[in-house]
């Protein structure tokens, strides 16, 4: 990928797209919704370029825009009585996983989607984006103690949700196991 010289700000945005797509997909659990959000996020970023105080914080700035767009989308869906279909959540991701891992991928994405947005967000900032607790605290404007307790709760709830998925879907497990057999 060679980034064009025409506009450095747009070029910097483009450079952040792959990371942001990964984060968005994990946050919403759905590749196509994540792509729509990333596109909306980029358009909003262009319109609000003036609000980026420090270019080195562009990744966090984009994540904040994306989260706000996602919360807007959820509010809109709630007001219309529409929810994201769980089956839709898993398919794209499961199909991109090796056959042996598809059952586990489905379990994981389902379990992740049961967490609150706050818990998903903090799990992703630390576990996927690799931010330190201090960096997360700065990005979210919260004390480190709050970050620690929220993250610990998020981990606990994810584990509980995973245990529940595995208990509820023994047939899926068997099916996934069979598919894994060459």
């Amino acid at each position, binding site marked *: 990928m060679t980034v064009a010289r025409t506009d450095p700000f747009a070029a910097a945005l483009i450079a952040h797209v*792959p990371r942001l797509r990964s*984060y968005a997909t*994990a946050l919403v659990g759905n590749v196509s919704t994540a792509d729509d959000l*990333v596109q909306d996020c980029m358009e909003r970023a262009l319109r609000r370029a003036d609000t980026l105080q420090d*270019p080195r*914080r562009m990744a966090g700035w984009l994540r904040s825009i994306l989260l706000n767009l996602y919360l807007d989308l959820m509010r809109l869906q709630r007001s219309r009585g529409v929810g994201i279909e769980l089956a839709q959540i898993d398919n794209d991701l499961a199909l991109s996983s090796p056959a042996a891992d598809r059952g586990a*991928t489905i379990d994981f994405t389902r379990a992740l989607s049961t967490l609150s947005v706050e818990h998903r967000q903090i799990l992703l900032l630390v576990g996927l984006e690799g931010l330190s607790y201090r960096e997360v605290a700065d990005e979210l404007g919260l004390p480190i103690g709050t970050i620690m307790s929220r993250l*610990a709760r998020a*981990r606990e709830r994810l584990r509980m949700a995973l245990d529940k998925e595995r208990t509820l879907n023994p047939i899926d497990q068997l099916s996934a196991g069979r598919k894994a057999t060459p």
Partner: protein
Amino acid sequence: MSHENGITTEELSAYIDGEIDPARAAEIDKLIEANSELANRIAAFRADQERLLQIFGPLRDVPPPPKLVQLLEERSVSQRARRTPYSQLGIFALAASLLLVIGLGFGYFRYFNAQQEDTIISEAVAARSDAVHADQSFAANAFNSPQAGDQIVASTLMMNLKAPDLTRMGYRLENVSVYSGVPGGKAVELGYRDAQNRLFTLYLRHPSGPARVDLLQRDGMRLCVWQDEELGTVMLGEMSAGEMARLASLAYSGLTSS
């Protein structure tokens, strides 16, 4: 805050992330040895963490959709055209206007800028190949504190910066070199190596051209120039464009001191 085997859930979580005091981490290590249930619990949390990266991490290797790239380039041009030059281009636009007004001419300005932009790349390549002698060089394994690299970067460039942590991408800081006699005074080169002994260098100094982000290939080497109004960076390594884009993003965002 709940307690389990003398460990709070917050401590357990911080232990997994390596965000706990080393003395307390050593105590937890001993508790784990004596308690298989606790060991299993930590292993399960770590497995969840790995699964998260395994599922969503590879999405970072997927290049941006061409339609989105095209849209961004087109919209950025139309957005910028509606903005005032001073608010967006700042000091560079003002400097450019003044240079034009005093008669240096647009052609010379372009030539001048191109020369300066190439200079930062040449400097970075020379530093990486040891074609230029560093004023000072520090081995990271001899640092007496984890923040020593940050302090060298910040004090040399007189900016609130730190040596980015690239361990997530498998690169560890190996050495820090300081150079003088460059535009803006001094420059810093941070050398990182991965498990395959591949070298990634991050060259930092004050900028000498307009803001830019370029991903280029030169002599079998991938090169990323990422420059804003305050800092010029050149990143070099033998790797794919995708890997360089990820490393560059991690390195650039990791420069900000928290």
